[in-house]
């Protein structure tokens, strides 16, 4: 007789595919938010699988803060073109024209204007009623209790005290005009699951995840890479080549690298199992204040 059990990864995969199809069937205008990171890459692959042999019935959207690593942007454009995705790239024009950036305005202002506000503008502009995100519950405390279908009011705000109960795999997809749902199909995946899946499915990821000699400046204990000419000269002058990789990707001035020799997925996993820092600690923005992620999420950040 055939085997009738599936392993943990296959179960998570089936759950995610079910969620993605449910959104495609229930909403008029869904979009998949694409951060170009490893979690996004997994989510994108799951969407491709969900509609195989057909084309995915919604676009990808990247909110470009204009400070992403160059390799991320190259990867994004190449991946979307090669895999037939309809890619939307949006950014906060006003913020960009006013020269908002982390070096000149600090991480808080930059994140608010170029990420949170940019996202909200883009969602309003396209009138998307459902937006997929690649967040996982094990990343951060406030994510642990967020629903898979997470309701947002017409101002895109999350109310952690007033979440809809979510039972079985029966998702409530009803919204009024102007309201929306953020959907997290890989909520139940851990960081190890993500790497395992990338390995098994040969999912392409941005090379920055793998260790390489890179020009690095140390800023308050964070290892910041010199990615373009916008970094102030006094910082660039302190840069040294260093063998590093990135555990998460974002705006290059706000994303710290770690010293690492791991240049394959196996080595990354090996490093992860022994290294003792959880992944979001390399993101500068989480440290603004205690509970800061929850605050950002209430305001509409992913």
């Amino acid at each position, binding site marked *: 007789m055939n085997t*009738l059990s599936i392993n*943990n990864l296959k179960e998570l995969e*089936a759950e995610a595919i079910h969620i993605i199809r449910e959104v495609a069937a229930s909403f008029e205008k869904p979009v998949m938010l694409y951060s170009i990171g490893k979690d996004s890459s997994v989510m994108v692959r799951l969407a491709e699988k969900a509609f195989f042999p*057909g084309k995915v019935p919604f676009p990808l959207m990247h909110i470009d803060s204009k400070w992403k690593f160059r390799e991320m942007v190259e990867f994004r454009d190449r991946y979307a073109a090669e895999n037939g995705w309809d890619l939307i790239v949006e950014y906060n024009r006003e913020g960009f024209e006013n020269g908002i950036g982390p070096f000149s305005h600090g991480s808080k202002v930059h994140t608010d204007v170029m990420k949170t506000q940019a996202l909200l503008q883009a969602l309003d502009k396209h009138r998307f009623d459902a937006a997929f995100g690649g967040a996982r519950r094990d990343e951060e405390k406030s994510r642990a209790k967020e629903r898979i279908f997470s309701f947002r009011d017409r101002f895109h705000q999350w109310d952690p005290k007033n979440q809809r109960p979510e039972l079985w795999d029966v998702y409530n997809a009803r919204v009024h005009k102007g309201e929306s749902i953020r959907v997290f199909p890989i909520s139940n995946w851990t960081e190890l699951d993500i790497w395992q899946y990338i390995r098994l499915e040969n999912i392409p990821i941005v090379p920055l995840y793998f260790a390489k000699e890179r020009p690095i400046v140390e800023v308050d204990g964070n290892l910041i890479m010199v990615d373009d000419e916008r970094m102030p000269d006094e910082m660039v002058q302190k840069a040294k080549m260093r063998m590093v990789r990135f555990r998460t990707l974002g705006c290059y001035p706000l994303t710290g690298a770690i010293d690492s020799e791991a240049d394959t997925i196996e080595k990354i996993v090996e490093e992860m199992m022994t290294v003792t820092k959880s992944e979001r600690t390399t993101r500068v923005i989480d440290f603004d204040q205690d509970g800061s992620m929850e605050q950002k999420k209430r305001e509409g950040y992913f």
Partner: protein
Amino acid sequence: MALNTDIQAFLDQDQKKDLLRLLTAGSVDDGKSTLIGRLLFDSKKIYEDQLSALERDSKRVGHAGDNIDYALLLDGLKAEREQGITIDVAYRYFSTNKRKFIIADTPGHEQYTRNMVTGASTANLAIILIDARKGVITQTRRHTFLVSLLGIKHIVLAVNKMDLVDYSQEVFDKICDDYKNFVTRLSIPDLYFIPLSALNGDNVVDDSVHMPWYHGKNLLRYLEEVHISSDRNFDDFRFPVQYVLRPTLDFRGFSGKVASGIIRKGDEVMVLPSRKTSTVSSIITADGQADYAFPPQAATLTLADEIDISRGDMLVHPENLPRNERQFEAMLVWMDESTMDPFTQFYIKHTSNTTRARVDQIRYRVDVNTLEHNATQALSLNEIGRVVITTNKPLFFDPYHKNHSNGAFILIHPITHNTCAAGMIIDKMNATDLSARIADPESRRMVDGGKSLISQDELMKKYHQKGATIWIAGLHGSGKNLLAYNLERRLFDLGATVVLLDGSTVRSGLTRELDFSPADRAEQLRRVAEVCKILNDQGIIAICSFISPKNEIRSQVANIVGNERFHLVYMDAGLQYCKQNKPELYQKAEEGKLAYFPGLDETFDVPDNAKLLLKPEQLSENIQTILSYLQQQEIFPVD
């Protein structure tokens, strides 16, 4: 290189692990968060920097003295951290060499029943925590009831704080006995008892040295070894169509999650509701083409024939059909802040199928602490009741205890869109046995009717009559309609203002979407009754000719119309007479071609409260009898 091979071996093994979803029930006082914290901590899943953040937090708001407060690792949101209680459902992840685990951590107090039900809905197993000093308390019973309600098959009773009762076997045994005594009333297939101390780590991850008398497994070992793969239903194939995939003109795939059962290439399948059949020509899973698929896989099926299938339809094996009905009983957990309004037409979502539903009747409310049944008019937040539900379209369902995926549903409020309730369909109960609720006491009417500027007196003077409803009940072929039409003619000739309503008239329009099931018959009569009420309010006499077989429904109709205006006339015709009168109809019914036929497969309650009892053979006498009755009751004529 050696390292790399090790990691590959590790990853290969990791990939093979299965997943156990578990629920922890208990309150902070029982040391629940400490227990989870220890499971996570001791399985090396807590990273160092999370620990250092924890040490910082512990100094500020910690509740555990000098020790690390494991609970702080778990309580996510800021406000909750300050109150010292976990309020929502938080999900935690950890992994051992044998298995991966997802913990749904839910609060224990009664006001968080809905959160616990939410966490329990996806769990394979529940850990129910008991404080050894307190034993089986109300909370334990409540948690156990909820866990059994949600159909969780494995329960671990974790008797915590054994260190505070001197690791006494006697205490432990007594708690186990008390608990066993209690759970015999519930159906829980697999029970396991473990004495432990979460604070000191006894029997959590390592065997306790303090309780040599305990020979069972420690908690983690039990969680790693408990057998769960046979918990799924592999017998009854149910495939709710979630999405129709049509990338090209020659490919039509039906995507969905296998809810239960197994589907193989070449299997004959039936589509519900159309009942058309075809064979499965291909199965595509996440790994590409497959020969078979089973739960919980997501799959896309293609069929040999072109059949019109859309989202909400269900594919099944033709020899194994689910129930297909518009009315059923269910256990309902109310989750909304606002109390159930019995007039609301909710959205009901069952698998991928959505339609409208109303709660017809609440048979009883369960007291979650004592398990006693109480009568109630409506369910409030966190209350649980057994209800009768009627939907607009039929659902294809199985009882929840046999098939979780195909027996569960949610109710969504039509205006707020909140998820108001979670429901679990109860085992087979004939739709004919379910009575429907159509009338409600005046006090529960949500909307008051408008106030006319014309008084009843003025109407009476204009029409020379009083508004009233003459309701003629009787079997098919009893001569109701003949009487009704002749009565209408006669009253009209005498100058009365009358309106006649009968089955065929209303079924051609007002109630065209309803069928002959008891629930729909009740709904049809409710609408007729409401029309009569309006007509009577305008001073008009309504003549109604309806079989109306049930005492209960007739009295509900009388309530809607107003008892003083409702005049029941019974056509007392024997079944023989009726058969002679309508032979073809009765022949069809006797051949089983017509379901719910009053007098045959459905009982007709002979009214004991009819104002007039008439024999069908005497038409003109009958009309005279009614006219005299109307005069005597001062209905018509009135001067």
